[in-house]
């Protein structure tokens, strides 16, 4: 079965506007505007089982349904393209090959939600993706698929780009809203949730690039078709996996939801790099727990990975081999989070550097047995932080202490890193 997200891709260049249309592009928009009510579009998204592809996996249609229908004043849609989760590069690859699925998906989402004006929030460094989108928006406007009175209907939709200046926390949806408004991007208190009170105080939906790019195929082929793309009943649709670390080919691929972890590594990634042996991986970007060799047969979908004690997250798979010290890997991850903390709340601002220091000590062979308890305590304390950054940072640490406690202890007993000569 043809998967929706990469099917228009050309190997060496972005698909053109004409090619996208010849291959059925913007037909979903035509279908929706000519024969579906906004509520029907929303229902199709609910029925499809589509869940947020940015990392949290929240059901997209349900998120849309939180927007109060009757509130007066403008409402907003924001596409989150602040892809800064280490190991995650799927949205960049998607947009560098094809900006049109996102444009069409956002237009459909605007129609379903009654949004007149939408934004794409793009991280620094994704200039090529932004350029593709800018060009695509201009082409769609010229063809009457965006802007005033789309396809001769009564619906007008504008799409603007916001180019950010680099900071991980901007991917948190309330921080993103502050950033877009030109305020310091600290996260906001929830509730009220953005669906009720978001951008400029209006109801706001924030969805990931991959999430929105799936909408045209759902509308064109129906929710049942989309659900059926997954390999297992728990999943729905396809998933982009961006793989890095110790694999032969570090690629971003679209696979049916529910594809087993080992098949991703042995299939499109060509197995492990240079005959190395798999030790563990982080399945969904930096803020997810390790999966180990016993999980290689695990179907990669939200529920199944959660049951196995980790998260599908963004689908950014980082593969470690037996030569990698996972204390040092976790230290690298915590260092990232400590640096990217916005400093707003104390547990995150003070806790992350403290955890980092302890891991540094253990890695340097100066750890003590009591450090294990201190680390575990902090996993608990950091859950009291204001937003999800610090709890996310604790996920790999929790995984380290759960799956590789022996390796941590070996550092302490031997007073050195056992993986360093």
């Amino acid at each position, binding site marked *: 079965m043809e998967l929706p997200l990469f099917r228009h891709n050309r190997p060496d260049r972005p698909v053109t506007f004409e090619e996208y249309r010849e291959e059925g592009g913007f037909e979903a928009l035509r279908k929706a505007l000519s024969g579906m009510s906004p509520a029907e579009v929303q229902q199709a998204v609910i029925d499809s089982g589509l869940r947020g592809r940015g990392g949290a996996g929240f059901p997209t249609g349900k998120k849309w349904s939180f927007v109060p229908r009757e509130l007066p004043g403008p409402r907003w849609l924001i596409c989150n393209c602040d892809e800064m989760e*280490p190991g995650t590069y799927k949205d960049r690859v998607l947009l560098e090959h094809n900006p049109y699925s996102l444009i069409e998906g956002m237009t459909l989402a605007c129609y379903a939600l009654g949004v007149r004006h939408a934004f794409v929030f793009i991280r620094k460094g994704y200039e090529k993706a932004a350029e593709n989108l800018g060009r695509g928006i201009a082409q769609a406007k010229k063809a009457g698929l965006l802007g005033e009175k789309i396809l001769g209907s009564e619906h007008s939709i504008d799409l603007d780009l*916001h180019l950010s200046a680099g900071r*991980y926390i901007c991917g948190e949806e309330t921080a993103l809203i502050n950033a877009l408004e030109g305020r310091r991007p600290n996260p906001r208190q929830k509730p009220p949730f953005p669906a009720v009170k978001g951008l400029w105080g209006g109801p706001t939906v924030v969805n990931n690039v991959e999430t929105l790019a799936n909408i045209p195929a759902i509308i064109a082929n129906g929710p049942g078709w989309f659900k059926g793309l997954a390999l297992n009943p728990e999943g729905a649709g396809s998933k982009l996996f961006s793989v890095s670390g110790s694999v032969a080919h570090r690629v971003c691929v679209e696979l049916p939801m529910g594809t087993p972890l080992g098949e991703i590594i042995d299939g499109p990634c060509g197995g492990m790099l240079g005959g190395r042996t798999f030790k563990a991986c982080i399945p969904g970007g930096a803020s997810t727990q390790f999966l180990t060799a016993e999980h290689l047969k695990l179907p990669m979908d939200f529920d199944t990975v959660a049951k196995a004690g980790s998260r599908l997250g963004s689908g950014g798979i980082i593969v470690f081999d037996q030569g990698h010290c996972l204390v040092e890997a976790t230290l690298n991850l915590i260092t990232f989070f400590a640096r990217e903390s916005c400093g707003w709340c104390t547990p995150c601002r003070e806790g992350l550097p403290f955890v980092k220091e302890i891991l540094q000590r253990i890695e340097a062979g100066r750890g003590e047995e009591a450090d294990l308890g201190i680390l575990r305590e902090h996993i608990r304390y950091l859950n009291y932080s204001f937003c999800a950054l610090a709890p996310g940072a604790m996920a790999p640490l929790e995984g380290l202490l759960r799956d590789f406690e022996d390796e941590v202890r070996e550092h302490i007993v031997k007073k050195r890193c056992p993986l360093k000569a």
Partner: protein
Amino acid sequence: MIPETLKNSLKARIAAAITAREAAVDVMKELQAHYGWLTDEAVEEAALLLGLSPLQVEELATFYEMIYRRPVGKKVIHVCDSISCWCAGCDGIIQHLKDRLGVGLGGTTADGMFTLIPCCCMGMCGDSPAMSVGGTPYGKLTPELVDRILEKERRQG
């Protein structure tokens, strides 16, 4: 003082925004491109254009990774030290950059050409280790490739 043409284009950008401060990041970027870094003068000018206080601009400027509130070299090198690049040996690449440039992290070369700054994930994990030089991304770095890139970037000025 910024030239009148730049001032007018910034005013037009702000006028096109739904609220003025929504354009703050764009304005800071443009002023930084003009001055080479976001000078104290630029902060004042941005504040005036955006209808904010200088402190409000300052709290934005200090938040973003790509806004420089201190003088930097002509081209800033952002070298990724996140997990995928770590797997691919970024520690060695960063050491090589330090040695070649004769600076530590945060330092600027004696000729004022390069400033070396570590950065978080660039979304180039498939091509790690990665860095960007003056905004141009480079991946699959080796010490030899780094040397060639530095030479090319220096020659291009």
